């Protein structure tokens, strides 16, 4: 058991013993050895919690399940959640969008050395400069400080695609969206996607058909990317959960790059700054 795991467990145990929270959301190992989200309700169960680079989802998504009172007269549950630095930005996002209250959430921040998908370090993690979450109540630290990679994110992959012709890009996305089965795993895994009724499923107004052709899939993915413009925290959970391995993070990274270049905004730095599409500057004239 690593030092990180021990700290996560003891934080969880303490929260549950003191009655600070009713559930701790972390990771456990399933019977076949796969890492998966775990919900710990009893202090004794805290031993189930694990930490490893395979923990690549964004558990902040689950906070949406705990943001309402379950019954009249029962208070909103208090929850503790284990987060990586990118997930922690989603906590700030939800705080800013008034989805959760700070006093109802305990954040167990983990000093992150990058997460893996299928045994390989995620591409975003190889250039991530962030080791400590922007928001936490307990910081889980390793014995040795984690090194920050020298390479900074230059959005090289996005820039390369931007050098293609529109036809080539359409062909690329048509090929990728071709596999999409519209299972909406990307949407469900995303902490920023919490509409009561998604545009993709709305009947009135009827935005898009339920058909499974390129125009419908294009609409869904572009719509989702646009709704996350300036809101995406770059956790890549959408891409990780996709059963068809569609490189959805490319869409989000492209928008993150533009948002940074145009508005100098980085999602989730703090819960106060207005996101770029919720504000404006009267002087600016953007290329249209």
């Amino acid at each position: 058991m690593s030092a990180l795991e021990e700290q996560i467990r003891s934080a969880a145990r303490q929260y549950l013993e003191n009655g600070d929270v009713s559930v701790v959301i972390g990771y456990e190992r399933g019977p076949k050895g796969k890492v998966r989200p775990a919900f710990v309700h009893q202090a004794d169960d805290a031993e189930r919690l694990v930490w490893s680079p395979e923990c690549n989802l964004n558990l902040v998504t689950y906070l949406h399940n705990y943001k309402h009172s379950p019954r009249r007269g029962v208070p909103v549950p208090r929850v503790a959640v284990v987060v990586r630095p990118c997930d922690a930005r989603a906590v700030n996002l939800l705080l800013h969008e008034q989805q959760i209250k700070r006093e109802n959430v305990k954040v167990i921040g983990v000093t992150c050395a990058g997460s893996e998908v299928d045994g390989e370090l995620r591409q975003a993690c190889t250039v991530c400069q962030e080791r400590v979450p922007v928001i936490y109540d307990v910081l889980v630290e390793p014995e040795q400080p984690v090194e920050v990679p020298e390479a900074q994110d230059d959005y090289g992959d996005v820039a390369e695609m931007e050098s293609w012709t529109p036809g080539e890009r359409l062909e690329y996305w048509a090929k990728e969206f071709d596999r999409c089965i519209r299972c909406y795993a990307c949407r469900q895994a995303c902490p920023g996607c919490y509409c009561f009724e998604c545009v993709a499923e709305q009947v009135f107004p009827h935005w898009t058909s339920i058909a499974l052709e390129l125009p419908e899939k294009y609409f869904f993915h572009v719509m989702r990317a646009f709704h996350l413009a300036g809101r995406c925290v770059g956790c890549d959970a959408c891409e990780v959960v996709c059963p068809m391995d569609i490189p959805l993070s490319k869409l989000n990274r492209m928008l993150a790059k533009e948002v940074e270049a145009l508005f100098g905004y980085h999602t989730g730095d703090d819960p106060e700054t207005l996101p770029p599409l919720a504000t404006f500057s009267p002087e600016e004239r953007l290329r249209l």
Partner: protein
Amino acid sequence: MKVLTQAQLNEWLNHLAERFTLAAPVNVQGKLLYRQVDDSSGIAWGFERTDMSPKTWTFPATEPILIIEQGAETRLDDAPAPAPTVVFGVRPCDARGALAIDALFLDKEPSDGQYARHREATTLIGLACPQMWDSCFCTVVGGAPNSTEGLDLLLTEVDGSDGAAYAVQIISEKGEKLAAGMPGEEKGVSLPKPRLAKGLPTLPASQEWKAQFNETFWKQVTERCLGCRACTFVCPTCRCFDVRDEVVSRQPGRTVLQRLRAWDACTSAPYRRIAGGHNPRPTQHSRLRNRFYCKFMYYPDDFGPLGCVGCGRCIEACPVNIDILEVIAGVEQLAASGSS
């Protein structure tokens, strides 16, 4: 029994591709999907389990089922009939999945017209599994890696003198018609026994499931469910659908609409949401629990076959590792502790 060499099989498949729409497992950017192929060279040979089931050919993810023309008078037309199709490389579990869907759409009145036309037009050529792969559990739900149920032809890989050879079992009339003129030679071969997985749970009977409906066990299993639809879409037996009428063209005095059917999933929140926003299955817990109860209690009780054929795709597709085998084992355990 007729035995084909790989070359003869390729030749026969090329021949089929000329006469039919031939669908087979194809490697589409790393994912194995049943797609139309022009000839045998596009087929992903040596595959284990495909990522999507061949259900996509008999029960497409989305298709028009009715054309509505509104003009001076209203006219209803059937959707265009499906082309004669041969699906090659169907695993025995997926063929049993097709039988399970038949129980609802064909065996009960009224039968589903469009589905019936698809089934009529489709011939399933099976490819027996030499072993049970990771997450496979067909033996738990009454199947076998070399089961012939639901198939028209079953090919089993046998040792040939040079390279792979395939022994052909003719199972149905449709299969017999298709196999007429097939190359290969008659030989006495013994079919290899598939390697079975060990340590699998035993499936509890439907009344055992009924008794466990309110157990806290379900809370634990379903708490991490994200509410996506991946498990139901990859499933060879999940058959729920949504229907919508959509305008195709609108001209003065004449509107053409299509009634579109698309897969739906009980695991997603809008599935049961009704007018006014009320949802009779309000929590993710009740929605995912329904999926398991549908498979092992409601469907067999109402229609006969189990709603699960043990292909293991949902185990692989689930982003948060909800494992149907773990659920079966859990219910088995609960049933055992309850009766003792």
